[in-house]
């Protein structure tokens, strides 16, 4: 599948945003006071900026951007529609939560809105993941790993942001750095398990079954319908840089999860906390973008079979 820059940016940015919101909401549930209130207010601001940037990136992917508002109408069947709706519903919740924290904090409203913010954040990420997990023709997406993985990456990237934020507000990352370290470890294990799973899968179909020949019949492409590339081949038959996949996987592992794990442990030990948490965020962002690129570039679509591609 073609890794469109707009979609890579969307899913990575919203992962950071809603991951951070999921953690920030818990402050309200626990009852934030004093400097923690500052952290909640700064956090919700960052969430709004990142999520909005992500949504703008996603709109850039559309052929008719001016019609984007129509995308929230089919929530009863479409995960894309549900994602849009969940993302929009999160705005008033975040704003309400920030307002209540700003006015009072540690009230029943703050607890309720904090819990609502956490749930809305997780629900939005889940909807994003289900867009991919529900697509039957793509075996690398339509599997039990996709939805939990997106949640894990979001919570991990959000935790790296939280650790940075906490360092800025309190001068030390404290438990937030441990959270980020455990997040990195969880994300690392999830990614390895995902690769193990998809590498062991067998193709969803054979060319014979795609063209209606009896099972076991051998079929080979003879003539393609057209000499040049078309939409189907560009979108569903993406093959560029597949040969670098092994190297890119190692880069994603090291940059996305390994280094943030190490840096978060350093931050937890109070070794240059501002530098280590900032670097952890930067590494996680680059690593997750690489991981997301691979998630698309290594996904194969059944329709590519018609062009003799292996899936």
């Amino acid at each position, binding site marked *: 599948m073609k890794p469109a820059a707009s979609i890579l940016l969307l899913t990575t940015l919203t992962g950071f945003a809603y991951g951070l919101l999921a953690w920030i909401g818990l402050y309200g549930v626990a009852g934030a006071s004093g400097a923690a209130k500052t952290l909640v207010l700064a956090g919700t601001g960052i969430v709004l900026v990142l999520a909005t940037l992500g949504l703008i990136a996603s709109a850039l992917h559309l052929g*008719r951007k001016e*019609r984007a508002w129509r995308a929230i109408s*089919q929530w*009863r*069947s*479409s995960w*894309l529609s549900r994602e849009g709706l969940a993302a929009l519903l999160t705005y008033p919740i975040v704003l309400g939560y920030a307002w209540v924290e700003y006015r009072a904090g540690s009230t029943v409203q703050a607890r309720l809105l904090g819990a609502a913010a956490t749930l809305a954040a997780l629900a939005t990420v889940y909807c994003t993941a289900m867009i991919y997990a529900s697509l039957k023709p793509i075996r690398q997406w339509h599997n039990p790993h996709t939805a939990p993985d997106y949640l894990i990456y979001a919570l991990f990237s959000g935790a790296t942001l939280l650790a940075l934020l906490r360092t800025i507000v309190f001068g030390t990352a404290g438990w937030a750095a441990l959270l980020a370290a455990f997040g990195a470890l969880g994300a690392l294990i999830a990614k390895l398990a995902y690769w193990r799973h998809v590498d062991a899968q067998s193709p969803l179909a054979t060319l014979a079954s795609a063209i209606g020949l009896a099972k076991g019949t051998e079929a080979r492409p003879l003539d393609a*319908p057209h000499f*040049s590339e*078309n939409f189907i081949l560009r979108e569903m038959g993406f093959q560029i840089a597949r040969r670098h996949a092994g190297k890119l996987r190692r880069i994603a592992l090291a940059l996305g999860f390994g280094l943030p794990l190490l840096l978060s442990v350093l931050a937890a030990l109070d070794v240059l906390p501002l530098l280590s948490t900032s670097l952890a965020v930067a590494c996680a962002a680059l690593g997750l973008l690489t991981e997301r690129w691979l998630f698309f570039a290594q996904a194969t679509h059944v329709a590519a079979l018609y062009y003799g591609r292996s899936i």
Partner: protein
Amino acid sequence: MTQVAKPAPGARKLGLVIDLDTCVGCHACAVNCKEWNTGGEAGRLPDYDPYGSEPDGVWFNRIHSYESGADGLARTVNFPRSCLHCENPLCVTVCPTGASFKRAEDGIVLINTDICIGCKLCSWACPYGAREFDETNGVMRKCTLCVDRIYDQTLPEAEREPACVATCPAKARHFGDLADPQSKVSQLVSERGGVDLLADLGYRPTNKYLPPRQAQIPSTPREAPARSGSGVGAALLKLLDKALSR
């Protein structure tokens, strides 16, 4: 609506039956499809760089040729590929706007290009590669089963069939109601063992393909053309061949 409405009792299931045994792979159906749909109600079907080195564009129907079997029973299978108007169309349910829909009265899957946002998700959901993105208009396009032709009362009745069916010189394409067991297309499917493509994926396509008949007479492979051997004799012959070829 994006949700697939339950077909009304007695509703028709319009679709195509394509005979892979008689299809000669001439691309006439694809050409006539392009011709009709670029001028018909569906509006222009764009071409990009049509006279350049990398011509590209939107087609509702594309013809592949494959080779199947081995040795004396190997054969060419020409395979026209277009929307199958599935009964379980994931392309419809994933659509966030409701632009993609399946008609309750006859099962035709269509796109309302006036509200399509061009997110391309439907093309990802289709395992048959039947939906293509229209770069010029920023929307998705697909086979309409010539809905603007099959119901056109101003056309003579015999012409109220999809353009691809009307033009097929090998009569390999058949159009009709697959919900009616007595229809010509349903009869063909039951007689010839018509199949669903990628049946395991569960899309339940309406269009059926009639598999190629089993070859009755194995054709013996042609004798390999004589190749020149080695040695002095062969070298002399090569020289002679060169001289004679001048």
